[in-house]
Structures are given as C-alpha cells and as structure tokens.
C-alpha cells in the first residue's frame, strides 16, 4: 500500500527545512517508521521520489543506521544496554531475564506485538547504570525485577513513566517526534535525575561556586 497524501506532504515539509533537501532523509525515514511501523519499500520509494534520488540510495542509508527497522516493531521498543559498563553493572542479567520472560531473542517481537526487545549500545546515561530504554526514553537504575515489571505493565496497558522523563508514548509516536513533529510532552518529567545533580548538591552544601566574572561583583 502506498503512503497517504498527508505523509507525502509531511515528507516534503521535512525536506524543505534544510538548505539542501537530501539533508531531510534521516528524519524522513523516522516519519516513514512512525506511519508504517518500519521502513517499508513503499516508504523508501516515497523518500526517493521526494528527494529525486534512487530507491537504492535511500535503501543504502536506511540499512546503515541501527534505529531503522526492516521488520515490524512492537508498540514498545525495549532496549537493554549491554555495553561494558551497564553489562557489568547488571545489564547482561537484565537482558537474559527479559529474553526468558518475554520468550523472544534479540531484535524479536513478542507474539502479541507489544514488545520488541533489543540489546543496545551505550546510551549516554552511564551514571544511571544499568540502563534500559523504552522507545528511547530513559529507564534508569534497573534490576531484572524492575525491568520485568516495566514490560508487564506495558503489556497490561498500564501507564508507565520514564524515570527521568514523561509518560511513555508508543514507538510510532516517538518516531514522529524524531522526524521533527513535536508532541506535547517536553514539559513532563524533571530537569535532571539525582545522579546528574550529584556534584551540584555537594557544591551547594559546601558553598562552592565558580569565581566571580568581570561583569558582575557577585559570584555566579
């Protein structure tokens, strides 16, 4: 089935954001995933048509980046960091537990289509290890038990919040934000988690600051 007119218009809208249209290809493929649930041949054709390049060129890009999926993704993409630090801190055991619990292997989707499980690389939250991502939202300081609880809640349709962000949306909705069409959740969640503030808290307690600058008498 070919993409609808609204999606085609939005693909053109993305390309128009840039000085050169082809720069829009990465967000355009995110939009394709938000509509199709994966990168489909139809989505590739549509991107190629908008940008005036070959489908092969689009395909070459789509196969290079790990966030683009060729198989249908579930409602929730669950990524467990198994890069060294998270793996050592417990990520390996969390990933094993989730594979058993969900009865899927790496990069596979549960039969009910809710959860796609994948082990992922470092997601820049090492001070919250072991880290799990759900639709690329942070689930910090996980244990095998907490991770199982998260996927059970998601499968039961319960509302789940990121530990350092908003209530979780679906994977397709997340892909739409990545395509540059914001949702209304920017103001949800805290500014920073506890580990992000570890040094600042000590500085506050001790009265430590950066020196005063030239323009102000007070210390900043």
């Amino acid at each position, binding site marked *: 089935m070919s993409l609808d007119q609204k999606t085609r218009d939005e693909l053109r809208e993305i390309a128009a954001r840039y000085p050169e249209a082809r720069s829009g290809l990465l967000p355009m493929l995110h939009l394709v995933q938000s509509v199709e649930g994966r990168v489909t041949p139809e989505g590739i054709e549509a991107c190629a048509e908008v940008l005036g390049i070959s489908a092969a060129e689009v395909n070459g890009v789509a196969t290079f980046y790990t966030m683009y999926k060729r198989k249908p993704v579930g409602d929730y993409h669950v990524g467990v960091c198994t890069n060294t630090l998270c793996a050592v*801190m417990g990520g390996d055991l969390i990933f094993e537990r989730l594979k058993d619990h969900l009865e899927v292997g790496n990069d596979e989707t549960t039969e009910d289509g809710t959860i796609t499980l994948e082990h992922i690389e470092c997601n820049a939250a090492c001070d919250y290890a072991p880290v799990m991502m759900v639709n690329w939202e942070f689930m910090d300081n996980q244990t095998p038990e907490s991770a199982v609880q998260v996927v059970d809640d998601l499968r039961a349709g319960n509302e789940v919040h990121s530990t350092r962000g908003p209530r979780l949306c679906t994977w397709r909705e997340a892909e739409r934000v990545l395509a540059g069409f914001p949702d209304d959740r920017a103001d949800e969640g805290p500014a920073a988690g506890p580990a992000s503030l570890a040094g600042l808290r000590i500085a506050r307690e001790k009265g430590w600051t950066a*020196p005063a600058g030239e323009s102000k008498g007070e210390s900043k």
Partner: protein
Amino acid sequence: MTDTLTPVLTDNWDAERAWTLASYEERGGYAALDKAFAMAPDDVIAAVKESGLRGRGGAGFPTGMKWGFIPQDNPKPKYLVVNADESEPGTCKDIPLMMASPHTLVEGVIVSSYAIRANTAFIYVRGEVLHVIRRLQRAVQEAYLAGHLGKNIHGSGYDLDLIVHAGAGAYICGEETALLEGLEGRRGQPRLRPPFPAVAGLYASPTVINNVESIASVPSIIVNGPAWFAGMGTEKSNGFGIFSLSGHVANPGQYEAPLGITLRELIDLAGGMREGHELKFWTPGGSSTPLLTPEHLDVPLDFEAVGAAGSMLGTRALQLFDETTCVVRAVLRWTEFYKHESCGKCTPCREGTWWLTQTLARLEKGQGSEADLDLLLDQCDNILGRSFCALGDGATSPISSSIQYFRDEYLAHLTHGGCPFDPAASTTFPSLSDTAAGATA
C-alpha cells in the same frame, strides 16, 4: 584559590523547570547575546581564543583557533554544526546538559554562529534520546518566539536559523566528517581530509563542528570574560569541565570542576568506591582512551597530564571498575562494540575489529594460548594509525592497555579454563542475582 567544584554549566540544573526559557532568563540567560553583538565577530573569536577553551568532545583542539580557520573571504554560506551525538561509551554529560538546560546550548549556538558569521546552524543530536530531543525542539521554538533566533536578532541586524536534526543510531557519526555525511542524508562514513570541514564541510561550505559542552561554555566566557575562564584549570588546560563518574562508585554522577582535578578527589566527593570494594581499573575519557589503574589516582585530569600517563583526557568519562570486574570480559565487550560500529569504509578497522573480537572471545573462554596475546598486540599494531579515522585507533586502546596492566589476568583465563570471576558480584544487585540465578559467590 578556586573551589573544588565550580558549577557553571550545571549551575541551573536544580532550578524549577530549568529547561524553560522563563527559568533560564530569570537567571540571566541570553545576556551573552547583546554583549557579543556589541563586539565585532573577530573579537568574539579572539575572546574565545584568549580563554584557552579547548574542545570538550575528546580531541581538545583549541575552539577559537578552529573558528579562526574559517575562510571569511569564501563567498559560500558558513555553517555551525553542534555535535550532540554523544555515544562514546562512558560519556554522559551532554545528554543531561541538553535535558536540563537546552537554552545554554542554544545561547552558545547563537554567539558562536555570530562569531564565525554563519546564518544557519544545526544541532545533530543522536536519535536515541527522545526526551532530550523534545526539550531541544521546545527550546528552539521558544528562542524563535522570544526573538533570540530568526531575523534581526535583538535588533542587531544578525539573522540565524537553528535546526534540530535527530540522527538514527550510529556511533561513527560522532566523528565529525561522518556526522556531516549523516546531516547530508547519506551513510555516515568519514571523509578524507584535507579538505578540512573549515574549508569544505557541510555542502562543501566552510563549517565549524563543535561539541555540545564546548559551545555551551561560550556564553559564560563572553559574559564573564576570557580571563575568568582562563583563571580556572591548569596552565594549558583552561577552564572547567563536567566529569562523569560511573560504575562501582558510591555516588555516580556529574561533577563540574576545573580541569586538573584528580580521580582521587572526585572519588572522595562521590563517597568513595562502593562499600567494601576497591578500584581496579578505569577509563579517563571513554572506552577509546587507554585504561588506567589505581597508580594513576593522583594524575591531574587535564590534557597534558593524562597524556603523559599514557592515556587521553577524552570526554572525562570516568568509568570505574572494582576488583569484582573481569578486565577481559570488559575489554571483549568494548571490542564487540567497535566491531558493531565500524562503518566498513576502511579495511584495517572493518576486518581488524572482527579479528580482535575472535581472538579475545577465545581467550575469554579460556581457549587459545599465551601467544594469542602477542597476536592481539600485532593486530592492534595493524589497526592503530592505519585506519581511516579514530574509531579504529580507539578500538585498540582497551586491548593494548589491558594487556599492559593485566597480562596475568588474561593468562588466568587459560589456566582456569574460562573466566575466574563471578559476573553477579559486579552488579548493582549482587544479592538479588544470587537468589535469582542460584549463583554461588
């Protein structure tokens, strides 16, 4: 005497709704704009040069000098691209910065773009951080509405458009020319240099690419003066930086301090190593920087001293591992990462990381022989300095440094017939996993 910790970039992270324009402006945010617009662009560049700010993305190249390389007589448009593709294992400073205070980055983008005379700027942020992207999108939208972005900013006659661009999962795009390929809608493979991006970067136009923390530091330099910045840190490594502690430390997290603080001081601030354990090995600046050991606890964490100790300051990503951790397992996992992320463009990296993984995996299982250690070092020798970009070089760092410091531990795998460590003991839930997995300590 400067205080031990010097919160500047992190200073507003505990503010109520710190990510909003209202909160940021209430604390004096966007004050750098008018001050910069009253200066000639070249004087802004001179101020950043004078501050001694060096790139915070790992390489430590002087930021002002980089800006000075832009040929202003080139008639093509100039571009600023912020490298927000934070993916180096252990590195976790830019993501919390953009989550808590995206306006610090936006303000830095405006001042920096003005200095290099760019009218279009991009923030290339990795795609795997949805909420950070939301906060950036919102901050840019707020900045446009407030007249900090767009046409004739603050009545200065200066125009700037800022585009938030989400990547799609590729460690290699942290390499600046691969990032440009991604931003041009192509596979993220590095480009041959020269020409350098300053001469022919995005769309073959003069382009500056800087790390998030580098650009975010610029407003404070303009507001407080270059001497203020240069007054912190060490002789050749000026200013402050965010030090990210992770792993087996009591209180992991972000600690903003003058460059030159030591790991011993940082671990003390973080409440020591976790109860009953001691430091075994650590990375000073991500997995691509050679491992260090407790003998390096008093090395000043600046570019020169860490270099002299045989490693690199990198991104100040301090991953700390205690005596429960198997260094062979740790190094194998990093090596698998480099193999996975190798872009495939050059043979030494594409094939070399594959061979490294094979050899290491065999050792980790207690198979192979002592000669495999020499084989590994030989493989490293064929990758380091022979790869197209720094990814291949980085892949060799954990291997050669771990063999240097922990040769006996590799051999123990051979005599033990496998890994002599209990992986459950190094987790954050050792007692839980004991019960769950039935493991014995």
